[in-house]
């Protein structure tokens, strides 16, 4: 296959990838979009086989390995529970990162295969692109592994900080740049290995100080990195499909990080520098006086809801942990049978990744036109009778609007307190991730329901 013809096909698959993302603008077109993505991938892979034109025994091995990998991927995709989606995405990012590193290494060892020159005499531009691809890929890999471990609970979600952390990170970043420069002037393979090794290290170091609830930003950021790594390799291979895809994924991840940061009213750097919600912030809250709290049981909650005409559900990460989405939907079904209007309010940073709550509700067969974003629904709280907060905390805290001293001041929050009454399902009065007390607990019209989210929801349904 001629180089020009294959370039045209790579362009086509790049365009199909754009259409795949475009399809996600609404759930109706999204399935078609995914199909475009799959077609684009098939074109890119087929064209590569044809343009390499090597159908010897190696080709058989490639197909076999492709199918083994594909079978593993398909198995994971069908087995994974929807609540584990953040871990899955983090795990997948790590694979893209590692694949980018491997491709860069292969190109470094055998540049002839990619028309980049010969070992020890690689074209300067290619060497720079290769180093960027390898370094960003390595950062994506080790960062995603840490994110995965934190999300999975294997590693504590608490931030890990130590003295001189930022200085160390800065030194490593500078040395990556210096190494890339030296590598280009000497073409030494030792430097290439060191570059990859310290890139792995920095990926690890930049994620450990970031706490569990900041994971939406981390996952989006790593999503972005995996794109830039792919683009770096795309430049090395002079491949348009990779360049287009890398740019798309890179900007997609960057936008998601931006949306997540805005949802917390924090700057990107504030999140990345980490340490948020660490021990020092929690200790300042202990001298607060004990305030009275109204608590109730499932019976009281059922009574309140039965007499309401509209209910707004506010789900959060706690719902995912308790796997309460199905029980919740059953409760809502019963409410609807009694003629009560129910809608769902989703805060942009609810859960551990962008859109996490929406997927869980969709899994529990909640129609997506009953689920609303913060801006769409926030004015409705004032007219609603009951707000049912299940597993959310900081995103409902009115302190963000009233107390300029609070660490979450200025963060957009759901105006839950404007409801006639608030039902708050929570296991205890402990503060949320930001380490601050929620004023909502102590309001006159709040009824605390101390229980496991799933069990409480089931009990309420029984009492309705």
């Amino acid at each position, binding site marked *: 296959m001629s180089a020009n013809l294959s370039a045209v096909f790579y362009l086509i698959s790049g365009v199909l990838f754009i259409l*795949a*993302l475009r399809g*996600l*603008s*609404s*759930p109706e077109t*999204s*399935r078609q*979009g995914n199909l475009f*993505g799959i077609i684009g*991938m098939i074109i890119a*892979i087929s064209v590569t086989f044809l343009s*390499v034109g*090597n159908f010897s*025994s*190696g080709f058989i091995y490639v197909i076999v*390995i492709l*199918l083994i*990998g594909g079978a*593993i*991927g398909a198995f*994971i*995709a069908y087995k*994974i529970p929807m609540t584990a*989606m953040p871990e899955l*995405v983090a795990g*997948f*990012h790590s*694979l*893209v990162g590692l*694949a980018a590193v491997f*491709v860069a*290494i*292969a190109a470094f060892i*055998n540049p*002839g*295969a*990619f028309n980049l020159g010969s070992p020890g005499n690689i074209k300067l531009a290619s060497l720079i692109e290769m180093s960027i691809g390898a370094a960003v890929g390595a950062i994506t890999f080790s960062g995603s592994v840490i994110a995965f471990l934190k999300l999975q609970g294997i590693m504590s979600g608490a931030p890990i900080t130590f003295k001189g952390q930022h200085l160390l990170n800065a030194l490593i970043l500078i040395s990556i740049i210096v190494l890339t420069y030296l590598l280009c002037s000497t073409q030494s393979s030792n430097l290439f290995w060191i570059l990859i090794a310290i890139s792995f290290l920095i990926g690890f170091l930049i994620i450990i100080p970031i706490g569990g609830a900041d994971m939406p930003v981390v996952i989006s950021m790593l999503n972005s990195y995996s794109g830039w790594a792919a683009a770096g*390799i795309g430049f090395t*291979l*002079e491949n348009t*499909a*990779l*360049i*287009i*895809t*890398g740019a*798309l*994924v*890179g900007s997609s991840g960057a*936008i*998601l990080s931006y949306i997540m940061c805005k949802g917390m009213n924090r700057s990107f750097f504030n999140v990345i520098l980490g340490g948020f919600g660490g021990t020092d912030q929690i200790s300042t809250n202990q001298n607060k006086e004990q305030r009275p709290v109204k608590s109730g049981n499932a019976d009281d909650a059922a009574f309140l809801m039965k007499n309401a005409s509209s209910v707004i559900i506010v789900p959060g990460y706690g719902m995912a942990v308790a796997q309460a989405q199905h029980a919740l939907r059953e409760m809502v079904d019963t409410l609807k049978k009694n003629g009560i209007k129910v809608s769902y309010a*989703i805060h942009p940073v609810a859960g551990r990744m*962008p*859109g*996490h709550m*929406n*997927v869980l509700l969709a899994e529990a*067969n909640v129609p*997506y036109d009953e689920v609303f974003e913060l801006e769409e629904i926030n004015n409705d709280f004032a007219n609603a009778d009951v707000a049912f907060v299940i597993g959310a905390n900081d995103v409902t805290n009115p302190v963000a609007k009233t107390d300029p001293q609070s660490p979450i001041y200025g963060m957009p929050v759901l105006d839950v307190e404007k409801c006639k009454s608030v039902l708050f399902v929570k296991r205890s009065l402990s503060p949320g991730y930001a380490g601050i007390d929620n004023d909502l607990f102590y309001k006159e019209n709040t009824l605390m329901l101390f229980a496991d989210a799933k069990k409480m929801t089931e009990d309420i349904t029984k009492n309705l």
Partner: protein
Amino acid sequence: MEIDPFIFRLSIFILSIFVGYYVVWSVTPSLHTPLMSVTNAISSVIIVGAIIAALANINGEVFTSSSLFGFFAIMLAAINIFGGFLVTQRMLAMYKKKKKDKK
């Protein structure tokens, strides 16, 4: 004077960033999780480089140090491609509209 092909690639890159910017802003927030899994799947188009590396045999040898890295990368990217597209499909199939005739 002739323009370096690198400049053409750079142009594609920059324009694609802008395309990505506008396309992603139009994605509805409720589909942000599928967006992440599908971007993950398409970024595995890096498999193209892995295939080239794996099939570039020197002197007729199938397994060389560089082709082995290629094979490993194919494996990783293939997990991602199948896993990413299929899990996206599984998620998207769950997004349903309100049924008109309520049970």
